[in-house]
């Protein structure tokens, strides 16, 4: 109980910090960020993409239970759905401070432009949020019926517990089967926001959507794994070792696909030898080499660790591997921005003068003493304000997850081998295990 109070407190504190700082940003404008005209998306969009990525796990884990009969994952479908719902909330919360005119957000409903991938993303993420919520709802319904608490349960008053359990089982399955395509779609569409832009060489590749899916399967499953391992605790770890190992292998397998796609992508950027392509690679491996090393090395370590017998079956290594993967995935999201915005699309070639890739300068949008207005690159690093606002989704996810874990039962019951469960009702209403 103590630990969960601490997590809840931390979540609320982070959320408050984010909200207060957002208030400051609203008062001053996006000038308080380090984004400028040449580098117009930064930490906020990266963090948004990060949360979209980890939101996948929920429905991927619960759908695999039904689609591929991975029964041993069943005890964790509730927590998986919860993590997906919370991450989707986090992603949505992150996108709001990025908007220059959040007060006009209703224009997305009043005047949607269906050609814009951003509108596609709004649609699929809204659907996904709804589905993950329903997934959590239907799985908790029998508990709520039994305990006489919870919300939206008036309609179950005239039903027997057995009937509610049957409805819960049936609808959990339906939601997770409908949800799976949406889980795939949120990554496809989020990737398409970038991949459709022929002006940006680093984004404009059909590899981006499948790679986003691979990364999402890896990091989403890792999130479910991490929460489950921490929630089950060391004492009961052995009981669910099989499930944990299964999830670790899913993570490792998805990372193999990810690294394959990355390798092919890099090769294609390099092979033709186009000046723009080579410049992107020099940004990736040179100027931003350190961030890129984090993106490559940490997930590679996780992959090897989770493939190994020892790494996929020890309490500590599962936590370490998942955590390192998150850092790597975050670096991947930042690396969407760095090389892309620093290879200006309007580059000029002057063949007779040996100049092949001269970036046409862009006005920053700010007049500041000692700073040039026109720049040929922009060394973006987030400001303190941006870091503080980016805490908002982290706080929200921690708050929602810890609050839900405290109020309702998301965990397999002590001593109850849930492998026998058939419809997600093999949980006890005992909340003390949190």
């Amino acid at each position, binding site marked *: 109980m103590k630990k969960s109070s601490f997590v809840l407190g931390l979540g609320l504190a982070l959320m408050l910090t984010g909200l207060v700082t957002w208030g400051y940003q609203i008062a001053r404008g996006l000038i308080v960020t380090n984004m400028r005209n040449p580098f117009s998306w930064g930490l906020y969009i990266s963090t948004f993409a990060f949360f979209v990525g980890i939101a996948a796990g929920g429905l991927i884990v619960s759908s695999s239970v039904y689609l591929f009969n991975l029964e041993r994952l069943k005890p964790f479908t509730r927590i998986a759905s919860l993590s997906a719902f919370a991450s989707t909330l986090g992603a949505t919360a992150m996108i709001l401070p990025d908007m220059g005119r959040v007060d006009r*957000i209703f224009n997305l409903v009043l*005047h949607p432009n269906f050609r814009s991938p951003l509108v596609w993303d709004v649609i699929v993420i809204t659907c996904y949020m709804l589905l993950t919520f329903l997934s959590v709802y239907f799985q908790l319904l029998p508990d709520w019926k039994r305990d006489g608490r919870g919300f939206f349960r008036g309609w179950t008053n005239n039903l027997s517990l057995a009937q509610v359990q049957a409805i819960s089982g049936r609808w959990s399955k339906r939601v997770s089967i409908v949800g799976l395509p949406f889980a795939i779609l949120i990554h496809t569409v989020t990737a398409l926001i970038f991949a459709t832009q022929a002006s940006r060489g680093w984004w404009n590749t059909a590899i981006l959507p499948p790679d986003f899916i691979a990364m999402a399967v890896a990091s989403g499953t890792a999130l479910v794994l991490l929460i489950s391992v921490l929630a089950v605790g060391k004492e009961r770890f052995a009981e669910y070792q099989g499930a944990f190992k299964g999830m670790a292998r899913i993570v490792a397998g998805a990372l193999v696909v990810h690294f394959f796609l990355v390798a092919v992508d890099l090769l294609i950027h390099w092979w033709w030898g186009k000046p723009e392509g080579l410049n992107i690679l020099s940004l990736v491996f040179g100027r931003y080499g350190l961030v890129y090393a984090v993106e490559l090395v940490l997930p590679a370590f996780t992959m090897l660790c989770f493939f190994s017998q020892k790494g996929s079956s020890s309490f500590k290594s599962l936590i370490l591997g998942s955590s390192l993967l998150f850092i790597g995935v975050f670096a991947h999201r930042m690396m969407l921005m760095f090389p892309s915005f620093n290879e200006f699309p309007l580059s000029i070639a002057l063949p007779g003068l040996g100049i092949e890739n001269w970036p046409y300068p862009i006005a920053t949008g700010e007049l500041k003493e000692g700073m040039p207005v026109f720049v040929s690159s922009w060394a973006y690093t987030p400001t303190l304000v941006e870091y503080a606002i980016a805490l908002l989704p982290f706080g929200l996810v921690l708050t929602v997850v810890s609050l839900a874990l405290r109020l309702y039962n998301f965990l397999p019951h002590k001593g109850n081998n849930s492998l026998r469960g058939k419809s997600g009702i093999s949980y006890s209403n005992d909340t003390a295990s949190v």
Partner: protein
Amino acid sequence: MRLGMVIDLTRCIGCRSCMVACKAHNSQPPGTWWNRVFTPGASFHQSAVGKDGEFQMNFLPVSCQMCDNPPCQKVCPVGATYTDERGVVLVDYERCIGCRYCLAACPYGVRQFNWEDPRKAKEQAGYMKGYDYGYPEDYRDQGRLVYTPDRPRGVAEKCTFCVQYTKNGESPACVRACPSKARIFGDLDDPKSEVSRLIRERQTFRLKEELGTEPKVFYLAPAKPVR
């Protein structure tokens, strides 16, 4: 009617008068430039580029290319960016939600964002007290606010081909302010217009043609002697 522009790079002297005229007429806040003129290849504008005693100096003005296939318009989630009946790509300052997708999508770097309140930015700049600039009245295209001297904070903006003037049949400020008549403005649909004639008779190029954005700004290649 499809409004377009031809820029004769042989005539351009790199004086940046068009930048200043554009900025002043369109009330652009400090740090925001709808129109730029640079010396390609040079670290400093108006400095020669070359080696081994062979130098050259050409200038390239770049503002909104008024694409027929505009990525900025296609990505705009709320349709704030649209093309009017004369083929001019405009931004509705009252609809823009400030997502900046258009800044990422534009291959020409012409889109500018109001990171801070433009009124305040002007007041904080070094202008003498009481000095102001910019066409003073709002201009609405079928009810949509496409020009206002002080743009709302948090919206994107860019060249409008001086919509407040060209809707009345006048030329954009950059065209009128060019001392060497390097800019020619007119209707690309009218075969008799000067722009149409130049595009037909002379060798022109467009920026980033390979992206298929189909700009309506055409360039006549510079034909200056190598000095």
